[in-house]
């Protein structure tokens, strides 16, 4: 049963991901991206991480793609339709794809499907939001702060770029 659902979500996710890069209209691409993110959220639920799934829908589907759409909608779509968008990137792309396939193949062949549970029993993990919050603010507080700092820098960078455009 679980495998069936996994296959459904995975197939839709891959098909929509292909749609993101191959559709001609940027708005359609953004919608494919949203569908893809929703499928990833569903996969998180299959992996028993409801918190991650909710956050995935919240941030990626509810905010990031909406902002994409917001930006794409005000573009002049007649000009921005993707024609000739591979600016001599073919050889680089080929190398990256081969490398990616190699790494994926290696992980799939050598990985194991049952990860050890660690300190927590199956029952304790039902309330995994609480555990995750505690870990984030105790054991992993340093990486957590570094990430938020990086995000802040990115935010300021975006504002600076937008300010320059205005002048």
């Amino acid at each position, binding site marked *: 049963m679980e495998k069936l659902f996994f296959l459904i979500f995975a197939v839709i996710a891959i098909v929509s991901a292909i749609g993101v890069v191959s559709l001609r209209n940027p708005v359609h691409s953004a*919608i494919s991206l949203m569908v893809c993110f929703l499928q990833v959220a569903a996969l998180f639920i299959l992996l028993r991480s409801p918190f991650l799934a909710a956050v995935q829908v919240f941030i990626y589907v*509810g905010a990031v793609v909406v902002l994409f759409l917001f930006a794409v909608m005000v573009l002049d779509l007649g000009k921005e339709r993707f024609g000739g968008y591979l600016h001599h990137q073919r050889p680089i792309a080929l190398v990256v794809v081969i490398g990616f396939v190699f790494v994926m193949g290696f992980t799939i062949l050598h990985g194991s499907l049952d990860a050890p549970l660690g300190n927590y029993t199956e029952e304790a993990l*039902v309330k995994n939001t609480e555990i995750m919050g505690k870990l984030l603010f105790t054991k992993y507080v340093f990486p957590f702060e570094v990430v938020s700092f990086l995000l802040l820098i990115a935010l300021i960078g975006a504002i600076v770029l937008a300010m320059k455009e205005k002048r």
Partner: protein
Amino acid sequence: MPDINTLIEVALIIVKVIVVSLILFTLPIPLTWIERKVAGHIQVRLGPFRVGPHGILQPVADMIKLMFKEDIAPDKADKWLFKFAPLFAMVPAFAVYAAIPFGDKITIPIINKEVTLYISDMNVGILYILAVGGISVYGIILGGWASNSKYALLGGIRSSAQMISYEIALTFSCIGVVMTSNSLSLLDIVKLQSGTILGFIPHWNIICQPIGFAIFFIAALAEINRIPFDLPEDEGSLAAGYHVEYSAMKFSFFMLTEYLAMVTASVLTVILFFGGWNAPLFMPEIPIFWFVAKVGFFIYLFMWIRFTLPRYRYDQLMTIGWKILLPLSLLNILLTGLFLL
């Protein structure tokens, strides 16, 4: 072959889903009539009066009209998206109710079986509702864009900016409640609001989270696009906003979504701040009754506000969202944290 008890559980869930969806589908029919009657009486006129006694059959007449009207799509519209946008808006409005508890448990008298009055008790319930509720914005943006019309596009852009801005304040105001109840499950949040403080004040979150409630209520008004924040469909400057090109059933799907959003906002206010199905003061506990009564009161309040207040300007809307509500909601989280310490 799974055993008989699992089958009964599965059947029960399916029955609950069907019942809840049917109620939600039919709920807007009386609501449109009530809204117009409330509008009429607030503005010292009669409201609908022609069809049936006191115009009570008006929604039926409207429904017939909407079903048989010609379904027009603009010539240069994006045909697929134009068709799917109402669904993008409607599906999340229904999906939210998968996590909303209407009551705790009741025992059906004859077969003596305990039935829970919610479809599922998720341990991330409140996050799920806010996340899925946020998806509704797609219907509005895509509807506005696919119509290939200036007014619709402007309405769509305005509403996406508005909904994203106010979603932040809305979510942050919920964090205060989550902190005091120490749970993300709506069932736990309501259960913790039973009982009283000092023997006579009901132990509802409105008492310990007054700022949180104010922010939540204002942000919810903006999130469901009601006056004073109904900029997406500002008749004066945008004709009708994002659904200006829609007619017939597609238009009615958008209307359905708007009414459901209002119901959802009332339901969330009741669950998060007004004790859910807990009876006020020393009234007897009746399953569902108190919940419906409180939700009904808030639906009336939304209508009352609609016909009492004027509309804000767009820049005022953004100022309220980013410069007042957002800092205030952060302050609320800080204060709640200090009190909890």
